[in-house]
């Protein structure tokens, strides 16, 4: 519920505490060393045990087991149709597995971020972000205040009264992110949230997401097409084969540094190459 004490925020290489603004749009990157605020923060564990799903008689996912520790960040990659979206939706309770079960730790406050922003076009950004609180019965004053704070956290504090039509695609996604975070979720599920945006905006939003995760300590499960994004954000990447999907590879991601500089490190490139090979192999094989 409350922000973490600044002592928990790890120091960056340049000596300034990471997360502090260096300029209008850049923030000090945070290193992976002592990144995880284990034991602190609000994340809960997520277990997908032997979950399986089919549609219209055809299997989409074979038995998948996936475990996320509290405050973990895991990414799932795979070719189109491998069932990764279905996996995410089962994790969030939008779909029921045919076999196996889903276990979420307490308190289970789950938020979703979809590929489309899914904003109500007739509401301002503020009222959109406040929506989950409104539907949960929170009073007007409090919910607007919390929504404002959430929008500030995604750098949209000056656009609270704008309607979605007046915002760019990237800004709309940020509003969606703010809305997902306004309820202070313990588990954040993301389904290719930045897939429709251009590369620059995508990287900016990845940075913001990374930082929000680090500061809040929530557990995050990200489904993405982009291996680079998966390596950039997650501590562990799971590769699924072509549909019906099964796990082809699980790889822990350790990088010398987290943040924009990470992309140019050799470690980063190596992770990407290995994962790409696994992805290609899994995509080539018939299920």
């Amino acid at each position, binding site marked *: 519920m409350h922000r973490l004490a600044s002592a928990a925020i790890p120091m960056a290489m340049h000596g300034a505490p990471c997360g502090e603004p260096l300029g209008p749009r850049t923030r000090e990157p945070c290193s992976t060393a002592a990144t995880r605020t284990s034991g602190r923060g609000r994340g809960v564990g997520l277990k997908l045990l032997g979950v399986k799903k089919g549609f219209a008689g055809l299997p989409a996912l074979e038995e998948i087991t996936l475990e996320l520790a509290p405050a973990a960040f895991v990414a799932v990659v795979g070719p189109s149709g491998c069932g990764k979206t279905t996996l995410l939706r089962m994790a969030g309770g939008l779909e029921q597995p045919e076999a196996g079960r889903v276990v979420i730790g307490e308190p289970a406050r789950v938020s979703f971020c979809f590929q489309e922003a*899914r904003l109500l*076009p007739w509401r301002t950004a503020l009222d959109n972000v406040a*929506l989950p609180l409104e*539907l949960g019965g929170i009073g007007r004053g409090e919910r607007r205040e919390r929504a404002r704070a959430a929008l500030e956290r995604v750098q949209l504090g000056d656009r609270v009264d704008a*309607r979605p*039509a007046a915002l760019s695609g990237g800004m709309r996604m940020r509003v969606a992110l703010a809305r997902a975070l306004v309820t202070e979720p313990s588990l954040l599920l993301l389904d290719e949230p930045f897939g429709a945006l251009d590369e620059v905006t995508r990287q900016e939003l990845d940075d913001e997401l990374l930082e929000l995760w680090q500061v809040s300590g929530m557990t995050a499960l990200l489904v993405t097409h982009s291996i680079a994004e998966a390596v950039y954000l997650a501590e562990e990447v799971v590769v699924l084969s072509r549909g019906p999907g099964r796990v082809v590879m699980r790889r822990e991601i350790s990088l010398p540094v987290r943040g924009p500089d990470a992309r140019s490190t050799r470690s980063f490139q190596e992770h990407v190459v290995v994962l790409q090979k696994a992805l290609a192999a899994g995509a080539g094989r018939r299920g």
Partner: protein
Amino acid sequence: MRRLAGALGPPMAVVGAVLLGWQLGVWSLRPPPYLVPGPVDITRAFLSDAPRLLAAMGRTGLAAAAGFGLAALAGSALGSLLAASRFLQRGVYPLASLLQMVPLVALAPLLVIWFGYGGRATVASACIVALFPVLASTLDGLRSVDPGLKEMFALYRARRAARFWKLGLPSAAPSIFTGLRVAAGLSVIGAVVGEFVSGFGGEHAPLGIVILAALRESRTDLVFAAVGLSAVVGFLLFGVVSSLAWLALRNWHPSAL
């Protein structure tokens, strides 16, 4: 203000050109007045009887507005009800569409028997004609809510009432306004037809009776004047709906941006 002028300018120019052409045609071809009066004759007919005609227009306008208002409320309420139940939709919707098909002139005498002479039968007539477009557009709008948004509301465990007022109705608003625009014009037709069988005569005559009397007396110029005034009523109602639509949709809907 400039925007208003920009919106009104072109249609007024077209209307002006039509009227000019019409009057020139009348001057050169000289058709008998009982057959085709010119705009000048029609204006003269209006001016020489303006108080009576304006009073008639007021009566018809009030009846049409009342019928329209009732149709707007009932149509949107019924549409919302049908949207909530597949069963009701299948049972009631086909019957409601019958409302459109029954010719009003056949129904109107029945309305007199049920509601009596004067305003009530006229309002009922206007309401019947205007109801279905509102009902259909409401139902359609509510059924066309973005499934992604619906899923989101389900995720937040929104209650039924919240889903209707916060998602369904705003989402359906553009469609409902379209239905209301259509209903506005139809309500005037319904009012005039209702007046044919139930309107008072003499000094308390609404436009429908003015039209019938003028037809019988071969006062075609007066017929056109009265018909023109009923069109004005239609425009006014339509304008009110359009203004409300603009107010409601202006910040977010492509049609009003």
